[in-house]
């Protein structure tokens, strides 16, 4: 009787949780409803976790003697893992968000892999379908764990350079094939009952070691600029692994939540790749940036430096300004200064908008978060497709810390590595000011024709310092007028 009741309660709670997850994600489609969306998803998670302790009433006979220890361990793990992650999540800077998301995602992949390990070591996974799905979930979860850790290390700049060696792709493919072969051998041994070459625990450990190693090998050669796509892929991978382990455990809430996230992550990945004009396989399996064209297209004109104050005053008397922020803005921690300057312009009657390229920042949408953090209202922030036609009728474009996303070579220069990438049409506005640290090149390692065009002036210096001077210049102007 008590066991029936346990199943009824857990089943009902998981159903509610699955509904709340989807309802919550649905509400995240607008900034207005999004905070309530994550809240209802959180309620779903809380009740599902609490209800899962009811499994204690229906544990297998051999686990009965350990029940109280296991309950204690479960509570301790929840408090320790949840507590530490909660504190780190509350403290992390918004600029460090991509690596934090990568880290939390890796944890989820690791958890899915660990569940598979329990099933395999405990000998609970029986039958070919169960075994194959368990191993597949273990493989994907393990790759997601080790790969996310490498992505985290790269984004956190612990690992600086992409690591590449001759024959890397062939080596990586071989590593994956070996992992699959070990997995296949495990299924064969369990099904046929023939004596294995190694003991079963050794085989399982070998399988996990290979899967984890493949995750590392696969992520090492990918450059820092491609990390947004990689995080997105691993997010989808963890979702898939969770869904597969949900099938093994016969838990529909895990199956649904995992698969919803898997599909969502896949869609986000494709959107990101499209914004970079590259296929996902191109990002994963080609070493972008290794074959930088030495030969530049003919660049006509010259760089025309100008003073921050002059640029500021020109913007003060313009009627419309579009700001194009890039990661350089965040690197200089100048978002607050930028919004202060923008508010000054607005109070002088200038219409100011922000134009965000899909790959601005280190993960999709990060620049939007960084601007929101500085207090920029979301209705001033526009995405590429929504604003690109407005540059033609705009007086001034102010490009800060962005380079490749405004490079007109993407439209015209067939030999350019970024050819075909959608760009913001900053070059079409009447005047362009570019705030830049120095004369360096962008991620793609190519010169930007925009900087040499007749309607463009360069303002050299640290973004925060330059914006400080701009604020002073505009303030000085209005105090003189008064």
């Amino acid at each position, binding site marked *: 009787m008590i066991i029936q009741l346990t199943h009824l309660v857990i089943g009902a709670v998981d159903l509610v949780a699955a509904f709340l997850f989807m309802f919550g994600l649905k509400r995240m489609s607008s900034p207005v409803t*999004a905070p309530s969306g994550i809240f209802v998803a959180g309620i779903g998670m809380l009740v599902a976790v609490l209800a899962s302790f009811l499994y204690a009433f229906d544990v297998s006979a051999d686990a009965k003697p350990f029940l109280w220890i296991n309950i204690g361990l479960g509570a301790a793990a929840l408090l320790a893992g949840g507590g530490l992650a909660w504190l780190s999540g509350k403290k992390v800077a918004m600029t460090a968000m991509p690596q934090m998301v990568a880290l939390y995602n890796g944890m989820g992949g690791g*958890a899915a892999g660990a569940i598979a390990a*329990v099933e395999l070591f405990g000998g609970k996974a029986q039958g070919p379908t169960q075994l194959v799905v368990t191993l597949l979930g273990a493989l994907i979860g393990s790759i997601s764990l080790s790969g996310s850790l490498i992505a985290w290390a790269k984004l956190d700049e612990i690992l600086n350079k992409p690591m590449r060696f001759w024959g890397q792709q062939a080596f990586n493919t071989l590593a994956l094939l070996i992992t699959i072969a070990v997995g296949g051998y495990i299924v064969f041994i369990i099904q046929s009952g023939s004596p294995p070459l190694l003991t079963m625990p050794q085989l399982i450990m070998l399988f996990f070691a290979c899967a984890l190693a493949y995750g590392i090998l696969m992520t090492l050669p990918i450059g820092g600029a491609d990390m947004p796509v990689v995080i997105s892929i691993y997010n989808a991978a963890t979702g898939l692994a969770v869904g597969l382990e949900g099938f093994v455990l016969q*838990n529909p809430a*895990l199956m649904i939540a995992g698969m919803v996230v898997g*599909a969502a992550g896949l869609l986000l990945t494709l959107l990101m790749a499209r914004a970079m004009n590259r296929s996902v396989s191109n990002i994963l399996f080609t070493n972008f940036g290794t074959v930088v064209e030495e030969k530049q297209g003919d660049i006509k004109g010259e760089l025309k430096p100008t003073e921050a104050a002059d640029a500021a005053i020109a913007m003060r008397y313009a009627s419309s300004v579009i700001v194009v922020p890039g990661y350089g803005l965040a690197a200089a921690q100048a978002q607050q200064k930028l919004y202060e300057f923008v508010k000054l312009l607005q109070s002088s009657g200038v219409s100011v908008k922000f134009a965000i390229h899909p790959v601005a920042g280190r993960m999709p949408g990060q620049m939007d978060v960084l601007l929101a953090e500085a207090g920029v*209202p979301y209705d001033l922030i526009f995405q590429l497709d929504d604003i690109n036609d407005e540059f033609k009728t705009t007086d001034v474009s102010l490009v800060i810390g962005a380079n490749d996303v405004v490079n007109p070579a993407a439209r015209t220069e067939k030999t350019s590595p970024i050819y075909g990438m959608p760009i913001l049409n900053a070059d079409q506005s009447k005047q362009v000011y570019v705030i830049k640290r120095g004369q360096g090149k962008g991620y793609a390692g190519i010169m930007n024709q925009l900087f040499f065009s007749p309607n463009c002036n360069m303002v050299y210096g640290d973004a925060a310092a330059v914006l400080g001077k701009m604020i002073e210049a505009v303030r000085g102007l209005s105090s003189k007028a008064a």
Partner: protein
Amino acid sequence: MNFTIDLTGFVAVYIFMLAAFAGWVIIGRVPAILHTPLMSGSNFVHGIVVVGGLFALLNASTVTLQAIGFCAVLLGAGNVAGGYAVTVRMLAMFKPSSHEAAPGAVLPLPAKKS
């Protein structure tokens, strides 16, 4: 009455297919401006794996299984708590121009200046 769940064969495949389709459709409507909170939010949702970890841990019968189950719950709990904390923080930052904006309005355009 029997409330155990039996999701084998095609039933499982149907669940996967419909859930994947739902995920694709739900996320397809999210504006690019929310892509980062969306990613951390969906990251939080797959933290439901912690429930599977608890199930595995409660059924653990050897020290090895207990240790791995403990890791599963530890990592899953980190996924849940971390994902939730950063998503809530980020979403709290998105504010419209004027606080009088009608509730329910989707991305209102800024008023045209004359």
